[in-house]
């Protein structure tokens, strides 16, 4: 699919509907981006006010998802889209779901900040893993930014880069989890803190998974190829081939 295809329909309102839908997804994306951004800051600075703001923003994100659904239904019902237009609708619904889930995971990270502030256990921040939480969530933020840029430009190599980055984060996550499990064995650490940390780490990792899903959806949207359940070798080859382009 090519971006200029929006202008190719005879019906001006059809073009407009598709354009609206496209812009709406990016609007939702920028909301989640802002949410994630504030969340990273709130984790970094243990800022509970900012964390509360993040949780408030989630309501807006949820509303945006419903709006996208409404726009998709409107196009489906009125214009019976086919080919790349139909792929745009299907992708939009998928991306909206991923973004909404991302918003929920971001809220989970912010809850960590609130819980730690409530319990007054600020020394949790010195725990092994807290720094890595900041790192994973910053990289998740970067991935979200790149995946949204790739969606705007329908840029395959951008999407492929996001998928590769997600694999690196998976490895990082495995290492971090091992370290945190080690800490559980030492009794002098606060188990509750560690448990919260595990939740937050998990949430940050899930965010990168959703970013990867969106990247896969972009490839589906542009090429019509489905990357889900592709085995590792085939996937690596495929990614190489689109990056070479």
């Amino acid at each position, binding site marked *: 699919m090519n971006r200029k295809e929006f202008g190719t329909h005879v019906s001006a309102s059809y073009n407009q509907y598709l354009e609206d839908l*496209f812009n709406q997804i990016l609007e939702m*994306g920028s909301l989640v981006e*802002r949410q994630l951004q504030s969340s990273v800051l709130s984790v970094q600075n243990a800022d509970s006010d900012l964390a509360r703001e993040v949780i408030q923003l989630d309501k807006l994100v949820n509303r945006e998802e419903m709006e996208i659904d409404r726009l998709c239904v409107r196009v489906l019902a009125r214009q019976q889209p086919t080919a790349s237009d139909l792929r745009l609708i299907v992708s939009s619904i998928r991306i909206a779901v991923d973004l909404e889930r991302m918003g929920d995971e971001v809220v989970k990270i912010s809850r960590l900040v609130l819980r730690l502030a409530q319990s007054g256990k600020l020394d949790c921040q010195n725990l092994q893993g807290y720094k890595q939480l900041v790192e994973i969530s910053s990289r998740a933020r970067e991935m979200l930014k790149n995946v949204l840029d790739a969606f705007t*430009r329908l840029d395959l190599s951008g999407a492929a880069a996001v998928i590769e980055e997600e694999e690196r984060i998976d490895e990082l996550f495995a290492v971090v989890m091992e370290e945190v499990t080690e800490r559980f064995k030492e009794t002098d650490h606060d188990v509750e803190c560690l448990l919260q940390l595990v939740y937050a780490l998990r949430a940050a990792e899930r965010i990168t998974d959703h970013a990867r899903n969106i990247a896969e959806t972009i490839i589906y949207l542009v090429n019509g190829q489905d990357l889900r359940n592709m085995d590792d070798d085939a996937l690596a080859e495929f990614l190489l081939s689109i990056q070479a382009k």
Partner: protein
Amino acid sequence: MLSIKPVSSLESSSRLFEELIGVGTLLSIALIIGGLSGFWALAFLLAFSTYLARNLFYFLHFLNLVRSRALEPSKVPFGVWGDIYDAYFEKVFQDKRRIKRLRIETDQVYNAMNLLPDAHISLNERFQIEWVNHSAENLLGLRRNDVGHKITNLLRQKEMVQYLELKHFDQAIEFYLSAESTRRLSAKMVSYFDKHYLLIIRDITDAHNLAQVRRDFVANASHELRTPLTVLNGYLELMLDSADSLPPVWANPVTQMHQQSLRMQNIINDLLTLSNIEAEDIELESDYVEVASMLQKLELEANQLSGGKHNFHFNIESKDGLLGKSEALRSVFTNLVSNAIRYTPNGGDIWVRWYQTPQTLVFEVKDTGIGIDREHIPRLTERFYRVDNARSRSSGGTGLGLAIVKHILERHHAKLSVYSRLQVGSTFRVEFPIALRMSSDLVD
């Protein structure tokens, strides 16, 4: 400029003449053939069909030429067709030259745009990108083929989205490109060329940092100076208290030292006040300020300060107060009145008015003082700006009064205007927007 030559007109051309000669020749040949063979009708028919066939041939040839837009100048035929071909070639040639010129001019503009140090992005009325220059590519990470995308799809910063939604394009916005980026950017939208916009984004990191450094420096330096000064002041006061034990030679110097150290303390306090005002958030928490009673107190203070040397006329015409910071506003009023006292010779008049117009609430101080030269008026609110160095220092004051006034009034969205004539007097008028009006019965 390329002048467009008129298409060669038929009157002035010899081609019509050529055509007539051609027709004449054809007719004479027909006559000769008819005379020789006796088949008159056939001979004329032959001549006529030759003429028709030639015309048809050139008609089709010309049609092909126009359709294919081929420009290799083919041999121009004889007769009126020659005119048509000439005119067509002339026209095509002119068009080609015009297109070339336009292309050069467009390239020139593009190249100039690319050399500009600030990012320039042209948008249409739906805020879709039309083109971006090199700086936009470097500064913002946009790409040349981003044309057609909505700008907020690529610049998703909160400030940018709000700016385009609210459409307050007379103001500029400032934002960071991303969370970890330290580059501070300033963006301004300018509308141009009938429903197009030019988004100009510049890197103001240096200016932004410089302003921050200056503010911090002033705040820190004044804070650091305060402590040693307090010690000096304390001992000087102690010495003055036991003036009898001082050698008489030192009495005068110690008094002067004390005065100067007090003055220095005032300057430092004013500097701290200024930096506090600057550091405050734009939207301050405001409360009800009862201007009328504040001015009544001010009248007493003014009389004390002047020592009965000036005639005061306080006209409090409006009972309404303001929504604002009372301490800050008090210092605005005090500053303006004490300036009037300071710069009005003994026996002069000072009018203070508080009144209301349909759009504004006005505080006005008018005096019959020495006045201010026109060239100084725009610079009055600068820090330490002195109209006349010698006089101002002797009359005391820190040189920061009007700077403080300006900053406080900015926070209240009020406007300060100064009208003055040398030797006649000055008027300082503060206009508060009517939106800040608060009457006493509304308070409880």
